């Protein structure tokens, strides 16, 4: 079980709480988590990454265990602390705009 913390606009859009939990098969990767997230909450498609290219949107970043994973390849296996649910995977909207 992987815990995912969504930015405010996205958990309100999806009608969830701030934290959602998803299950993915081993080896768990960021790509697999996002695939599962979008399968369960179709309204999130296109909000975190591009529909077609799967490229992360410019103002969205991923933080795991206090580290910025935004530029990590999406198929990198996730740390154990994430895959066990000890730590959440944080999806962050940039502090920008007015």
């Amino acid at each position, binding site marked *: 079980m992987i815990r995912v913390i969504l930015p405010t606009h996205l958990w309100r859009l999806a009608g969830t709480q701030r934290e959602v939990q998803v299950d993915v098969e081993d080896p768990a990767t960021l790509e697999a988590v996002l695939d599962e997230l979008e399968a369960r909450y179709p309204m999130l*498609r296109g909000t975190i990454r591009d*529909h077609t290219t799967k490229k992360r949107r410019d103002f*969205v970043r991923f933080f795991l265990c206090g580290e910025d994973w935004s530029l990590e390849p999406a198929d990198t296996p996730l740390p154990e602390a994430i895959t066990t649910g000890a730590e959440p995977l944080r999806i962050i909207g940039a502090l920008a705009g007015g």
Partner: protein
Amino acid sequence: MSGVRVLVGTRKGAFILSSDVRRKKWDVSSPHFPGWEIYHLKGSPADPDRLYASQSTGWFGQQIQRSNDGGQNWEPVGNEFTYDGVPGTHQWYDGTQHPWEFKRVWYLEPALDDPDTVYAGVEDAALFRSQDGGQTWQELPGLRSAKGHLWSPGAGGMCLHTILLDPTDSRRIFTAISAAGAFRSDDGGETWKPINKGLKSDWELPDPEADVGHCVHNIAMHPTRPGVLFMQKHWDVMRSDDAGDHWVEVSGNLPSDFGFPIAVHAHEPETIYVVPIKSDSEHYPPEGKLRVYRSRTGGNEWEALTNGLPQENCFVNIYRSAMAVDQHDPCGIYFGTTGGQVYASPDAGDHWTAIVHDLPAVLSVEVQTLP
């Protein structure tokens, strides 16, 4: 309930303002989609409880929301807008070619006879259609074949901001794009042609009378005379009596012929409204006086409507989709400002009241006349 529902899109959410037919007392909803930009929301003529809204942010992209109960409850539907085939390129600000990239939906136009069919005008400019209530969207690519490689963005982006459906001919559709011009399809959106003859863009184009490239801001028609079109161009107010084949200027005695929205009275096809703005570099009313101008002669002869509108120190703008009329008698007219006011006149413009004062900047105003 017989009355009026005013649908207001703002920089930070949507608001629904409701009144009975007297249009004196208004209920203002809590914000829908708080914090998101709502470029446009509009109801279906075939089912007034079916609404569509365009919701977006620079962070998380585009959503389309749908309501089946007049805006009390909403559900996100399809948000994938993929250009047909290889998108190609269009002209960039510096004259080079630039790839077509989807940014947002500016305008939603539900079909006249089917609540599940809705058109979407997007940036970068293209026309999409959904026939399943917004779940899936398909581009009508013939529009971009009308010299799309020569279209270029205006300051607000290369947006398709106006869609007009001819109530007497289901195959005829009009669109307008900044800064490309006006276009017409006579075959249900399959093929298109520019309809810009008579437009003159002396300050904006190397060839002031080019086929495409004109910065059309808004077009309006009266449903009983769909061949007569009224246009607010970047500069100039124009009219066409042949469905856009030819245009003539009708700016007449306006204090400035720059502006964004244009609207037609619900029961008088020759009565039209504009809101003059000082210039393209100073987007506020001339002399700090907020004045709607009305022509009862289809243009050229204009009168200022000021009763109830601020006549000093007013420096707001009124965006292109932020003026609309209701169908009651007398006709009501409404517009929203970048200062967050929505003004309404229940008597065709003679008297105005701010029915709400302090919303976020208003991007769009639509009106539903409820039976």
